[in-house]
């Protein structure tokens, strides 16, 4: 995958990352992944639009204030569009000029976003796996139409407002907004609750913070270093806590959390 230029810091009043005069280097990273770009842009609080191409496919990502705020791939928006793009095996990523979305279709940080996306990709891969265990299945990217959910809103509801000619329907916007059934609580390293998703409680946020800190103290006592992840397991429900730039607590059915446990190296 090719990434260029080197995502320079752009003033907040600039509506595109396509600023050829900006400081920074154009780089080519043949083995870079889209997930890397998302993390780098969020980490550096880049504001800008990026065009992601792979063969005939083309999608767009919009970053602002340390978050990926919008993604589109044809009529697919939000997280679904990101999942589609993460499923592409190669291509290019370049800054581009695009009308800036008036509303965001993604409301989560890079860590949580990539976890959600990884779960979707795992589920899609599992769904594509046939009964023959010996058949090797290459991940198949779903067509946009396959990702659209059954409309759950009244037909006379207004679609979300976006600048430009392409105005996505509310159904497709909701497809992007559709989130996992896992509760997610994000807490800063000083214990401030940043985000509660999917019915997550402040209790989950506090527990995540407490467990991460207590486990890290324990690790330091034993000379094992800081704790990177904790899993609290019950017969039906579990909680997995992991630390990135913030502390993230996820709660759900024990089986549903298995993919997170794998991602954070607990299985």
């Amino acid at each position, binding site marked *: 995958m090719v990434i260029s230029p080197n995502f320079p810091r752009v003033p907040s009043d600039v509506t595109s990352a396509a600023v050829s005069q900006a400081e920074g280097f154009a780089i080519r990273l043949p083995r870079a992944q889209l997930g890397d770009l998302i993390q780098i842009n969020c980490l550096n609080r880049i504001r800008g639009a990026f065009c992601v191409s792979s063969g005939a496919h083309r999608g767009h990502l919009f970053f602002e204030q340390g978050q990926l705020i919008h993604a589109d791939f044809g009529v697919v928006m939000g997280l679904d569009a990101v999942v589609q793009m993460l499923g592409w095996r190669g291509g290019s990523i370049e800054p581009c000029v695009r009308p800036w979305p008036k509303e965001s279709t993604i409301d989560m940080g890079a860590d949580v976003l990539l976890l959600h996306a990884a779960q979707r990709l795992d589920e899609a891969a599992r769904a594509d796996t046939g009964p023959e265990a010996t058949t090797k299945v290459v991940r198949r990217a779903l067509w946009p139409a396959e990702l659209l959910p059954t409309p759950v809103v009244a037909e006379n509801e207004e679609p979300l407002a976006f600048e430009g000619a392409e105005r996505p329907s509310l159904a497709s916007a909701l497809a992007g907004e559709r989130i996992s059934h896992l509760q997610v609580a994000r807490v800063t390293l000083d214990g401030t609750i940043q985000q509660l998703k999917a019915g997550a409680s402040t*209790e*989950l946020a506090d527990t995540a913070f407490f467990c991460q800190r207590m486990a890290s103290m324990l*690790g330091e006592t*034993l000379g094992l*270093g800081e704790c990177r992840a*904790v899993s609290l397991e019950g017969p*039906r429900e579990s909680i997995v806590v992991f630390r990135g730039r913030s502390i993230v607590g996820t*709660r759900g059915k024990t089986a549903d959390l298995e993919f997170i446990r794998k991602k954070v190296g607990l299985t």
Partner: protein
Amino acid sequence: MSAEPLERLRQVSGVLGSFTCGSLGQLLLTDMPEQYSLVQLESTAARLANLFQSADEVLPKCRSLTLGFGEHQLSVRRYRFGALCVLTTAAPDRHLLRVTTRLLARRLSALG
């Protein structure tokens, strides 16, 4: 009680040591590498009890904890006698560890 039952765990690839603690966080048995002092392990046992106590408040019937560190993992599982804590590398022989842990738990439960 002798720590001899715990020695069996060390035969499992990736296991560095183990210890048991009571429900109130008191250290019971230890078969940990010498580098870990009793004071360190007692502090660890108390913190694990603290973690379980916190978990109980939000997660009904929390039965096990797994803590991931850089290159190590501490797995803790509750039993009737208390909790069995196993320190491993990041990639132990999980299948053998699971079965050995189960066998050991039976024995420890029988010993009271």
